[in-house]
């Protein structure tokens, strides 16, 4: 059995990747897999022993432990950094790393195309507008919507930080 404390922050650090010798693959399919896994690895759906719920809407507020959890969620302290901020920074760092690995120019074109060609019901509507509209008035959390939203919004953020507006 492998080390139970071993973490795999990105797909290319896993046994799966090395066993398949995926490091030899540097085509667009491999890049898409790495991008997909990067988005997912940074989400709250990636479970380790330290992954928190980070949401008090399901908590039993009638017991002391529940009340303490709700209080902690509502008053996280002055040094609190929202997980979304950390997630975006991690994804952008991952994008930069992949740009180095696959070539900056190729990576930028691939990522730009991923965003601009994302299918929406109305071709004149951008992916972000479509995704935002889709969730308006629907407070329920959908994992797939969140995954696509994180993907598309961080592409915009990546280019914004490079001074490029999509």
């Amino acid at each position, binding site marked *: *059995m*492998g*080390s*139970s*404390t*071993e*973490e*795999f922050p990105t*797909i290319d650090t*896993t*046994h*799966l990747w090395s*066993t*398949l*010798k*995926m490091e030899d*693959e540097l085509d667009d*399919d*491999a890049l*898409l*897999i790495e991008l*997909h*896994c990067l*988005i*997912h*690895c940074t*989400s709250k*759906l*990636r*479970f*380790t*022993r*330290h*992954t*928190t*719920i980070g949401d008090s*809407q*399901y*908590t*039993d507020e009638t*017991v002391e*432990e*529940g009340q303490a*959890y709700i209080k902690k969620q509502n008053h996280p302290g002055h040094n609190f950094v929202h997980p979304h901020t950390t997630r975006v920074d991690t994804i952008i760092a991952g994008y930069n790393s992949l740009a180095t690995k696959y070539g900056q120019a190729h990576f930028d074109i691939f990522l730009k195309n991923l965003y601009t060609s*994302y*299918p929406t019901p109305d071709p004149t509507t951008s992916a972000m507008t479509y*995704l935002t509209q*889709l*969730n308006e008035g*629907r407070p*329920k959390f*959908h*994992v*797939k*919507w969140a*995954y*696509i939203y994180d*993907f598309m919004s961080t592409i915009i953020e990546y280019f914004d930080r490079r001074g490029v507006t999509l």
Partner: protein
Amino acid sequence: MTPEERRAIFKSAFVKALKKDLYPRYVNGSNIALNHLLMNISLSLFPENNINSELDMEQYELTGAVIQRSNKHDIRQTGAKIHTFKEQSLDALTTSAYGMPLYVILENPILLRKLGSKIMTFMYLGDDLIMDSFLGTVVHWENMKLNSEWKPRLLFWTELPFDGVKRMHVENKWFRPFDSADKIIWDDFWGGICL
């Protein structure tokens, strides 16, 4: 099978599967990448007489594959055996569980009281490793199970019978892998991945 052939099959199946969630029919639906990964691998390994090409995942995407009773029902249609975990360890799983789904329940009576519980599907990769159903992350169960907030608990795992019975048999197609000849190909494929 050569490592290159194995890699090509896995990679192609992986990309097709993740695109099902990246470009979904229902954006607010459930993720179905793992279903498609296994379906695509099956079709690549057994292109002939394979009913899996006609499987419709739309209902999974619409309603979620987390309804345990219907999930178990669908698994049994393939002939797969369902084994309940007696210990909170993957040590009991053998090579026959490579690439097969296993199910984990999340239940915290205080922090998740209003949610009740949530069931998640993972794919077993051997050596205590599991991959989530989004095909996005690989984690160690022995690490994950220590999570004190979500309190994950192993429910059951699945195992294909390879008994030669042509299940979901319609005309000249049935569920594959299904017999001892298929088992050799299936085990060779996964054995080269889950080392």
